[in-house]
């Protein structure tokens, strides 16, 4: 605050100084938080879905990577696994996803109609599933186990019934599953 020198008294100086100190302390804390975010982002490559990739939701089933025969999990030549999933009112396809533990997994997910969401409970897998766009994200599962995968975005009156399952199996079991079928799902 600009005041003529004659009007400044000691207590105003003290008050302003304390305040300034608090201001800088708070800026410091916020800077540290931002620095942690930058460091984590660069060092562990923890990035949210990052590419803006489009796809026509009306022709998903006809051809291309989301045609029915391509849905589910498959080994890539480099030993990683790619999972293709479609969300639609009110289910995911495939309804049960099987993936190997301790293996890099890439999810490619899109919607055939409205906006859906997916999260895998007990993990930090979390993505919006939007018509017109492909959500891509990479992850890996530590240990075999079963997880629920609800749709977390309101997608119509049947929204609360939209759940899938993720079954994490050990690597050998997954290799056996994919040895006689190109794509693996745990749908029975």
């Amino acid at each position, binding site marked *: 605050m600009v005041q003529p020198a004659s009007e400044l008294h000691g207590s105003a100086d003290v008050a302003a100084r304390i*305040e300034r100190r608090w201001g800088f302390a708070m800026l410091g804390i916020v800077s540290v*938080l931002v620095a942690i975010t930058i460091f984590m*982002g660069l060092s562990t490559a*923890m990035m949210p*879905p990052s590419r803006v990739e489009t796809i026509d*939701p009306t022709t998903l089933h006809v051809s291309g990577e989301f045609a029915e025969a391509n849905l589910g999990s498959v080994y890539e030549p480099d030993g990683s696994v790619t999972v293709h999933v479609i969300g639609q009112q009110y289910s995911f396809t495939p309804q049960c996803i099987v993936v190997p533990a301790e293996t890099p997994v890439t999810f490619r997910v899109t919607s055939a109609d409205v906006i859906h969401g997916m999260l895998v409970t007990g993990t930090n897998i*979390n993505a919006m599933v939007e018509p017109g766009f492909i959500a891509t994200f990479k992850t890996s599962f530590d240990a075999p186990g079963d997880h629920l995968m609800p749709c977390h975005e309101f997608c119509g*009156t049947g929204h*609360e019934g939209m759940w899938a399952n993720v079954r994490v199996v050990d690597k050998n079991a997954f290799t056996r599953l994919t040895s006689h079928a190109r794509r693996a799902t745990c749908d029975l």
Partner: protein
Amino acid sequence: MIYNKRLVLAHFWLAFAVFGAAILLGEWQMFIRSPLHGWLRNADLYYRSVTAHGTVMGYVFPTLVAMGFGYAFSELALRQPLIGTRWAWAGFYLIIVGTLGAAIPVGLGLDSVLYTFYPPMVGHASYYIGVVLVVVGSWIWVALMGVNLYAWKRAHRGAPVPLAMFATVAGAYLWAWTAVGAALELLFQLIPVALGWSSSINAGLARVLFSWTLHAIVYFWLMPAYIAFYTIVPRAIGGRLYSDTMARISFALFLVFAMPIGIHHLFADPQVGAGFKFLHSVFTAMVSVPTLLTVFTICASVEIASRLRGGKGAFGWVKALPWDNPQMLALALSFVMLGFGGAGGLINMSYQLNSTIHNTQWVTAHFHLIFAGAIVIMYFAIAYDLWPHLTGRAMGSLRLIRTQLWLWFIGMIVLTFPWHYAGLLGMPRRMAFYDYTAPGGDTEALTVIMSVVGGAILVVSAAIFLTVLWRNHRAPQIAPEPYTFSKPVHEPANLPWALNGLGLWVGLMIALTLTNYGFPIAQLMRLHEAQVPAVYVGGKP
């Protein structure tokens, strides 16, 4: 004094009436999705209710409170009757028409699209047009706040603008600009499709436009509460405002940083690149600064009040505070909820932590703590403070008022703490029913039952609040003391240009928004492949 008492009372009463109705819907939603009953399994009724609860609590209630509060405070701070009273009434009636236009199709089940719209699901046009009318009505208020300040400044050249008005106008301008995002989405995307002029929509672009509104709207809700922190509470408890300058800096920073950060709501979205997500995360961290400044300044102001009353020692002064004063109590409870809610907010905005809780019940818990908790409890405090000046009648039992505030706090904690936990378990938000028989479902069932109890406490608190206000209209008449604002310890004699007007900050707000949103919006507009077929909910035109 307040010259247009009827105008202010009309805004407040309509606000609190719709609030009373919407809180019942909220409690009903919690009951319906709890395991406490085995009947009434109609999901559509639930989503209609969420749409109505969210529309009223998100758009109608806080907007009316901010408007009524703004009209009262501009007259009190500027000591001049409101210029443009007729326009103010026109804005009020527009909001009524808009609310009815939106509520009727929602009630009929033609618009179960939730209050954040969710394209490519598209409801009846009347709902969207109703929301637009509510916004247009509030824009009249924005213009009137600017006009009144401008008239005062011309009549008082060089004089420092009263802090209460500086902050009120900051809130108005923030709202004007943040509403533009949703307005663009409604006018250029949703309404044309709802009217049948087009049958496809870019859902990804719609979400980006909505995020422009979605975050800063919370800061618009929050402005009256912060204005009360600075200009009502220290006076009401017999203290001084520690620093007038810091207050102005805080409001200016809200204007600049609250706006260009909404993409942090879209961290998990595929249509925004990682670069812009990162940028918005960094700016989101910055918006905690004005709140941290406020917490310091208000705690210092409260300490001054205590020391004036004889409070001693490094912490002993806390005991000497006037805890029986409702304003003191509301402030303290508000700060506790702001603390929990703010910590949750820092987690939400953290680029990596967010993926654990995105779109789970955790988020619902976070924003209820901030808005319904920290902010709405200050709306109550504002009403209690202004009411005797509006009705010219004595405020009744302070004990009842304290009970009401405590019940609101307890109810909010009982409601939201289990929600946080459910969110960590992975419970999605906005679901009519859960399968409590699924693995882990029994833990989740318990959290929902606790929230039903919390909601019931909130309903009781709201009922007491409405009763206290209603009773005041029949209380004995008094001549209230002239209304005053908190006096700063050091009265500003003259202010630097930047802190005596909002020009600089509005300019920064617009410039930062354009840099942070311009590219993603331009990029998405060019993606014609992203146009997807609309899915009509309710009646197709």
